[in-house]
């Protein structure tokens, strides 16, 4: 893996040292991809952290929502939290990228199933995209980011964007 890739990967999925720990709080990194500098806020998904997410909504251009596609039982809960985030007044203008993660595992929901689970099809006037990924190998990561950077470029000409991630 090259330097740039390593950094990207860490930013989105936590660096190696911390990866085995639950993220208590957030982790913030700046990464550059295709001339877009992303300030990536990775926010921990534990229950007690969720009420605090909203403090980071302001000025967010894009949301990356990482779903554990294997966890069919909790997709309803994932939907609830997802809808709460995107309908927050501060998030109404952000574009939405959903990573349907853990596609390498047998029995995982397909991106389409995740799409239905989260209620993406019902969204009106929102730019969104879903991408199947395997975080362990990095599969799907680039495809997702390609969509994100080109969409954000469309949305506004400015060079700086910040992106929040949240995972399930």
């Amino acid at each position, binding site marked *: 893996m090259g330097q740039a890739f390593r950094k990207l990967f860490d930013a989105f999925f936590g660096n190696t040292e*911390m990866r085995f*720990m639950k993220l208590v709080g*957030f*982790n913030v990194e700046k990464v550059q991809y295709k001339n877009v500098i992303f*300030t990536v806020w990775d926010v*921990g998904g534990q229950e007690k*952290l969720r009420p605090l997410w909203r403090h980071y909504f302001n000025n967010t251009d894009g949301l990356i929502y990482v779903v554990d596609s294997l966890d069919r039982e909790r997709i309803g809960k994932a939907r609830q939290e997802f809808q709460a985030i995107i309908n927050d007044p501060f998030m109404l203008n952000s574009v939405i990228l959903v990573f349907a993660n853990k596609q390498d595992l047998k029995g995982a929901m397909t991106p389409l199933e995740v799409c239905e689970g989260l209620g993406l099809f019902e969204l009106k006037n929102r730019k969104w995209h879903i991408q199947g990924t395997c975080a362990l190998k990095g599969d799907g990561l680039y495809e997702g980011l390609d969509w994100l950077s080109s969409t954000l470029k469309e949305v506004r000409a400015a060079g700086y964007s910040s992106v929040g991630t949240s995972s399930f």
Partner: protein
Amino acid sequence: MAQPLIKKDDDRDDEAEYSPFLGIEKGAVLQEARVFNDPQLDPRRCSQVITKLLYLLNQGETFTKIEATEVFFAVTKLFQSKDTGLRRMVYLMIKELSPSADEVIIVTSSLMKDMNSKTDMYRANAIRVLCRITDGTLLTQIERYLKQAIVDKNPVVASAALVSGIHLLQTNPEIVKRWSNEVQEAVQSRAALVQFHALALLHQIRQNDRLAVSKLVSNLTRGTVRSPLAQCLLIRYISQVIRESGSTQTGDRPFYDYLEGCLRHKAEMVIFEAARAITELSGVTSRELTPAITVLQLFLSSSKPVLRFAAVRTLNKVAMTHPMAVTNCNIDMESLISDQNRSIATLAITTLLKTGNESSVDRLMKQITNFMSDIADEFKIVVVEAIRSLCLKFPLKYRSLMNFLSNILREEGGFEYKKAIVDSIVILIRDIPDAKESGLLHLCEFIEDCEFTYLSTQILHFLGVEGPKTSDPSKYIRYIYNRVILENATVRASAVSTLAKFGAMVDSLKPRIFTLLRRCLFDSDDEVRDRATLYLEMLGGDGEIVETQKDVKEFLFGSLDVPLSNLETSLKNYEPSEEPFDINSVPKEVKSQPLAEKKAPNKKPTGLGAPATEPSSGIDAYEKLLSSIPEFSSFGKLFKSSAPVELTEAETEYAVNVVKHIFDGHVVFQYNCTNTIPEQLLENVTVIVDPSEAEEFAEVASRPLRSLPYDSPGQTFVAFQKPEGVPAVGKFSNILRFIVKEVDPSTGEAEEDGVEDEYQLEDLEIVAADYMLKVGVSNFRNAWETMGPDFEKVDEYGLGPRESLVEAVNAVINLLGMQPCEGTEVVPSNSRSHTCLLSGVFIGNVKVLVRLQFGLDSNREVAMKLAVRSADEAVSDTIHEIVASG
């Protein structure tokens, strides 16, 4: 220490002129803090804003919960910046804001990341912050990193971890104790700071294990300690070990040799610490003392003020127990009297006063006189106290010492200082008979121009006791009578009492005294006139000159034999009537509960001495009180007075409870108020009552409380009219309104001008139970039969699901406010049905009896049958209404 203090003040004045923080204001800074949210951060700007926020917090400014939360989360966004300076400010800010546990967790992983950073500064500071915000669970997770940090090769990081350990030991001792090995390693560190902190932590870890401390100390005295600070600690620990070993034998005192060795250390702080430790050894011998005194003597002539101060202060203490050991230093001490630093000079003088002999007293007094005007009051007091003890030591020298005291009494000075002088003169008069006459005259002269009421009255009292016993009592009369002409009412009243004492004791003065007392009968103040009348009566001022009776003397000079505060309360509660106030009714036991305890819920101040547990005697007192107030005298007979209901929480500035007095067509709220702030006097205290949720009530009268001094309860009243005989209910909101005046704690005098202020109280309710008196009957069945079924009303009610029958029974009893009879309020456990008998008297003096039958069904639903008998059909219906709407 006066000097540096004064200097500091000067410095601050200068600073204020150049302060970059001048005019910083919270609202504006909070606005500025929005820059933290900018997508493109300006680290310099952000650092400046944080500096301002920190400045505000340090000035004691507080943020509301919302403000603090907003600033905190905005600050966390600065973690995206890689600017090290800014990051440092972020750490500080998180520590200062100390957000609540559920919010602060958001920075945990960022701090943990920094704790493992390659940048030393990040590591050190992240450790400090993490330890500040951590709880037990998180601590176990990061423990591994902290242990590593303790032995980090960067001293700043190691110190941060060690100091954090010291803090954490308070909250999580079991965890910190596991770090002993690492801490022990750090004690050996070559870095002075690390060694110092490590030793402090290691000692704290072991402090409860005497043997371990002793072992630690022995080990260290054998090795080398690099850090002077650590060595100072070591010396303190050694002192502790010596103290606890209880060995006072000379020769084999453990560690003495080590302490003596420290006197030759190159660091002054170590030398001083060791010298002081030696002087404080219990039962120290002069041989042990000598080397310590020698080094302290050298410090006396050091060029560093701090060393001179440290040495003279220590020697001053030694002089109390070993004056001879300090005499060697007298020459150096004398030169310190002219030291620029007045703290040093004062200590030098008082040391000399302690060690000096009779022949040096006059010389010293001269030197002191010269420098008294240069020092602050607090040091003057030290000098005065030293002179007082010197006087008692050398009674023959009283003349020059008394002279000195009377001279300084004439000069400018604050209350405490003047009080110290007066106290000293009084003690001299008491203990040295020869000093009496001149001392009394000095005091007389002082009260001719004394601005402190307290001191004037004290001196007048003392004069009354001592003056008549002197060879020529008549010469004091002029001074005393001048007070009657010139002073405020308090002093005038004291002067009247003193005159009376002279009259009682000195027959030859009686005619003059009578004339003077008669003049006082025209004084503008009640108290002065009352006293004059009383004394004239007692001393027989209207008849011939006779010898004063024994009981009169006893009254004038004897003690009252009751605690003054008790007397005060009793007098306040006394209502003017035919019956004279009886001093034998004043309780003699001293109530010394602190204020906080008095407010404890089980000891509610019931006001007016009406104990809540004895309503019968309570209502008498209330009735008397209320009927004495003209506005309420037409309300008729008092039906019921409630127990006091607290309207404030415990520990608040003003403690207020209310007693609800129910009359047929009126209710009166009696607010018992206590002011718990010594620095405040409240005046014109009223309660503004808003009855908007009590439609049937209309305010008719309000009686303000004229003055509410600190810790002396008082009452204010508000009266409402309500429909006659109707148990009207409602809710009232209350605001305490008053004029607050600042009180000078040293003199107890209030400022002229006050400001109006308000204080929100809890709401209060009039409920149906307020119209019911708890009056029991001895035989319920008989009463029930006698009452007959004429106005019996029976109905059934569903009380819904309940935890148990007990709960339902209590709820209904409380709702009605009636007296349970024959123990039927007790529900046997697990019973599924129960009968409860109640009796009471409803407003309008209508007797009421109630029979309640409860049943519990399988769904834990409670059903109740209510049977009421009373002498009035309307009342029987009312009882049902109360239950139906409860």
